[in-house]
């Protein structure tokens, strides 16, 4: 379940990456530049020999001569690996693989050493990968040294022990202890067996080969398919084992198939459209961003390009968008997957179907002219029956030499989506305000929809507005664009969109404001109008301002819907706020100091008057006691009063109430005592005086 879902998602991805699902482009320049970008050596060398091989192989397939200079460092690590006695057969395998491209010199004794160690590894091998590396290594040495004396002693025995890993469904196991079978392993096994066949000193038993061919066709029966016709191999996601992904699995199967087909005689019977589906799978993934995936893709495409089973041909268009105004011609190229030229063939356009009415073909079957110089098949004049719009063109490719039919494979019919664009004529555009009941035209304005208009209209809710225009295709037919919107925007940014409908060529929209009052939220005022007409086939799509209409709508009733909130401009949302300063309480108003001083002077005046009065009265001190004891008490009494008054002054200046009361308490007692003494003395004196 999870896998099928994931597969479905790959499909989505593929569709989203290559939009025209049935149009596949062969490998292009973007692959070349991506190759140079992905395989950039780190400080002059690659991390491992495996990576070195992948880089060199990719550059070799692309024929990139100006390859980054990695050969020297590659040779150094190759000879290190080959010379070392501790290298595993896997290391040796990749070293030899890299060497098959780098073509470094390997020392004679070293190569003897590895032959014997690989031979030993073959006989000791117990798992599929052991066989793969050791047999593969031997094959590589054989190819490189052009010596004929390398062969497996017991080729048939080794063949049988590898074959023992095969399963009934065409998949293989990695080792006898691992019950999981995989298509990836099947690819490896096929490559190994191909190696064994080429290393065999004598012809192998044909029955072994034929059962193997049978296995291959069983494996191809389990191929998986996307909706767009691409095919791929996939394994079940198994816990505990590194899952490879459909790209590497399919690539592995193809490599095995190619290797096996190269060493056997006779046909391998495979449905040809499956090979084509695989080719589409690899072309459909675009340019992978991962070096490993990129290598798998390019290596698999190279296998498809050179295999003995059948070589797929890919039909591609230089442009799927054809303009009637520019008089574009339909250019078709047929190439192999890597972009090299196909054998002589003819391309026929057998049908063209409009995306609207899919029933009848719009064209007669006709052949495209082959241009020797550019290698393109060209149809110069698009037929009169083809108007603007989107179409599906159906092509058929026929090989000229019947011999080629066995080598190349090509889908019987290729469907390609084509967009034909042109200038659409816009005529008779006008806008008018109508009186509702009579339908009489109140004001009418001609519009030029190619430029900005400045119409100003006014209407009330009892009137209608009519906008109309005509659209004609270059071939003089009615044109119905995908997008024909009239937009009314109120000052408060509330927008209303209307689709402009058509009957034939004539487009017309009538806005009956009476019915729209609620939709317009009873908002009176200026509405800016904008007309948008656009279509994929229209080269002159337009967005044009018409002007404005001043609407006079009735007052909103209480329960009327409110206009929706409009988004706030993000720039105005932020920014500093206005500064706030506190306004302090104003101090109380006071009289000027001079005035206070003047009144101070006035308050002294009564005292002065008092003094003057006393002097006038002739004040004397004749009653002051003459005897020393009462005189002392009198002085003490007045000193006490003075002290109390002084205390009041201090109380005003600095003392607090408690200090003052404390001192006043003592002073009071003292005053009462001395006061009583002096006052009783004075009273006695005055009583004596009276009685006398």
């Amino acid at each position, binding site marked *: 379940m999870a896998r099928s879902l994931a597969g479905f998602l790959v499909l989505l991805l593929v569709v*989203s*990456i290559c939009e025209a699902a049935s149009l596949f482009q062969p490998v292009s320049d973007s692959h070349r530049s991506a190759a140079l970008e992905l395989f950039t050596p780190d400080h002059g060398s690659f991390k491992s020999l495996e990576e070195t091989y992948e880089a060199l192989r990719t550059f070799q397939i692309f024929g990139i001569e100006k390859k980054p200079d990695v050969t020297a460092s590659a040779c150094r690590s190759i000879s290190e690996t080959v010379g070392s006695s501790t290298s595993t057969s896997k290391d040796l395998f990749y070293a030899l693989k890299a060497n098959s491209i780098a073509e470094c010199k390997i020392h004679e004794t070293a190569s003897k050493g590895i032959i014997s160690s690989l031979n030993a590894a073959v006989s000791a091998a117990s798992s599929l990968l052991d066989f793969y590396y050791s047999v593969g290594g031997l094959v590589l040495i054989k190819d490189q040294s052009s010596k004929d004396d390398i062969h497996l002693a017991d080729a048939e025995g080794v063949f049988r022990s590898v074959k023992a890993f095969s399963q009934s469904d065409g998949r293989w196991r990695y080792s006898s202890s691992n019950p999981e079978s995989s298509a990836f392993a099947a690819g490896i096994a096929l490559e190994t067996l191909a190696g064994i066949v080429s290393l065999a000193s004598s012809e192998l038993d044909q029955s072994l080969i034929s059962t193997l061919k049978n296995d291959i066709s069983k494996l191809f029966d389990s191929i998986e398919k996307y909706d767009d016709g691409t095919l791929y191999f996939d394994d079940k996601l198994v816990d505990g084992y590194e899952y490879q992904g459909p790209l590497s699995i399919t690539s592995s199967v193809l490599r095995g198939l190619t290797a096996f087909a190269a060493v056997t005689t006779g046909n391998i019977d495979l449905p040809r459209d499956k090979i084509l589906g695989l080719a589409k799978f690899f072309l459909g993934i675009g340019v992978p961003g991962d070096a490993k995936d990129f290598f798998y893709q390019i290596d698999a495409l190279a296998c498809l390009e050179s295999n003995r089973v059948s070589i797929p041909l890919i039909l591609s268009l230089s442009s799927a968008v054809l303009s009637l105004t520019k008089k574009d011609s339909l250019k078709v190229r047929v190439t192999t997957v890597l972009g090299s030229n196909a054998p002589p063939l003819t391309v026929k356009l057998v049908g063209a179907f409009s995306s609207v009415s899919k029933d009848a073909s719009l064209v007669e079957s006709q052949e495209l002219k082959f241009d020797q110089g550019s290698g393109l098949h060209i149809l110069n004049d698009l037929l009169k029956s083809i108007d603007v719009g989107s179409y599906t063109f159906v092509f058929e490719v026929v090989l000229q030499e019947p011999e080629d039919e066995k080598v190349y494979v090509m889908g019987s019919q290729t469907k390609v989506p084509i*967009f034909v664009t042109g200038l659409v004529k816009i005529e008779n555009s006008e806008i008018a305000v109508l009186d509702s009941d009579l339908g009489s035209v109140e004001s009418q304005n001609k519009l030029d929809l190619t430029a900005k208009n400045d119409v100003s209209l006014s209407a009330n809710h009892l009137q209608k507005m009519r906008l109309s225009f005509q659209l004609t295709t270059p071939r003089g037919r009615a044109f119905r664009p995908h997008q024909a919107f009239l937009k009314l925007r109120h000052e408060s940014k509330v927008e209303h969109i209307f689709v402009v409908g058509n009957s034939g060529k004539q487009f017309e929209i009538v806005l009956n404001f009476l019915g729209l009052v609620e939709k317009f939220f009873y908002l009176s005022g200026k509405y800016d109008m904008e007309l948008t007409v656009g279509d994929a086939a229209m080269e002159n799509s337009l967005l044009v301002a018409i002007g404005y209409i001043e609407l006079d709508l009735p007052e909103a009733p209480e329960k009327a819907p409110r206009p929706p909130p409009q988004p706030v401009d993000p720039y105005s949302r932020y920014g500093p706020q206005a500064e706030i300063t506190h306004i302090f309480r104003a101090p109380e108003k006071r009289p000027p100091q001079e005035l206070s001083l003047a009144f101070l002077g006035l308050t002294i005046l009564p005292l002065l008057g008092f003094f003057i009065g006393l002097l006038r009265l002739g004040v004397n001190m004749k009653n002051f006691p003459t005897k020393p004891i009462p005189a002392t008490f*009198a002085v003490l009494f007045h000193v006490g009063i003075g002290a109390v008054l002084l205390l009041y002054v201090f109380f005003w200046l600095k003392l607090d109430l408690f200090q003052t009361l404390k001192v006043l308490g003592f002073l009071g007692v003292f005053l009462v005592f001395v006061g009583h003494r002096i006052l009783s003395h004075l009273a006695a004196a005055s009583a004596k005086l009276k009685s006398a």
Partner: protein
Amino acid sequence: MGKLWVISIASISILLPFLCNAFSPESPTDRRLLVLLDDFAIKSSHSIYFNSLKSRGFDLEFKLADDPKIALQRYGQYLYDALILFCPSVERFGGSIDYAAIIDFVDSGHDLIIAADSNASDLIREVGNESGVEFDEDPSAMVIDHISYAVSETEGDHTLIASDDLIKSDVILGSKRIAAPILFRGIGHSLNPANNLVLKVLSASPSAYSANPKSKLSTPPTLIGSAISLVSIVQARNNARILITGTLSMFSNRFFRSGVQKAGSHTKHEKSGNEQFLTEISKWVFHERCHLKAVNVKHHKVGETDEPALYRINDELEYSVEIFEWSGTSWEPYVANDVQVQFYMMSPYVLKTMSHDKKGLYSTSFKVPDVYGVFQFKVEYQKLGYTSLSLSKQIPVRPYRHNEYERFIPAAYPYYGAAFSMMAGFFIFSFVHLYSK
């Protein structure tokens, strides 16, 4: 089996301090990213984007969205700093991740990138909804623009849009202008007008609309014109950042490498603006910039250095704070002319823009208002793109004490004079009364 447990627990307990260190207020840049994919093919088809993240030091972990072992947190600790959802069609996440877990992840201050696509699942739409955007409800709708589309040889339905209507903000998009238009093919979304945390970064042109390109329109589309947002960002109140877009292909190598020519324009750009745009905005999302911190908040009376426990009305005071911006590797002084401080009790009594010394120290001085009560020093700094700063410090303000008023008022001299002349008169009168004959 038991041994395995012991080993795993031991290794976790050893690793735990390091894991916890990855995301801290001291270095706010994210480190560990979980990338959820629909398919591992995306890893290779979008490798330029992922590699640019890796080269900036992020630790990416790729998982299938329906992988039964994925989890965002373990033992209450989040395992990742940010989540990238490149799985538009996932109906249900595997493992312990679900809608609520993602919302919690963001609520705890982590970042999120959501890429939907046509046929986006309800789950992804819901996550978008929660972030304040609404994807077009029609599952087959795409953004179409017949005027500002990207000229393409292979494709003519004008769903490949070349958009250059970017938000005008250097802090979000970097100081280098993005010259080339940005390629977009996917679904549009609209922003919730009530949500003021979400911002439109890349909007569609006025001629765009969101509809199914294959069927005729009879009713007006719900999303139209520049109200369509192609890429939006959210900065939550806890400074978590979210990037939402209705396309996955925008991140792909193909769009990154592809040249772009906008319809009607004759300039053909060698490379689309996607790489620059998405790299810059990922720097923003993963807190490599525009992350502010405020330290050393100080206030004291003019002429003093110690912070008082309370102020008296009408005191002159100085307030200062240091603000730094995270540059991805270190804290740099933040320079701006719009940092304001408020002296606040129910409403701001004083709101003043602070001056700075270009080394991050912002300061100002003002007089305490003649209103007593419990005030706050407040810095509420919000700027487009930056994390918001919200500092507040409580400080009481008291009125004058009884002995702090003016002691001898000239206007009262007549009263003083009257009292004292009265006392002097009394003293003299006591002699006159007692001893005069």
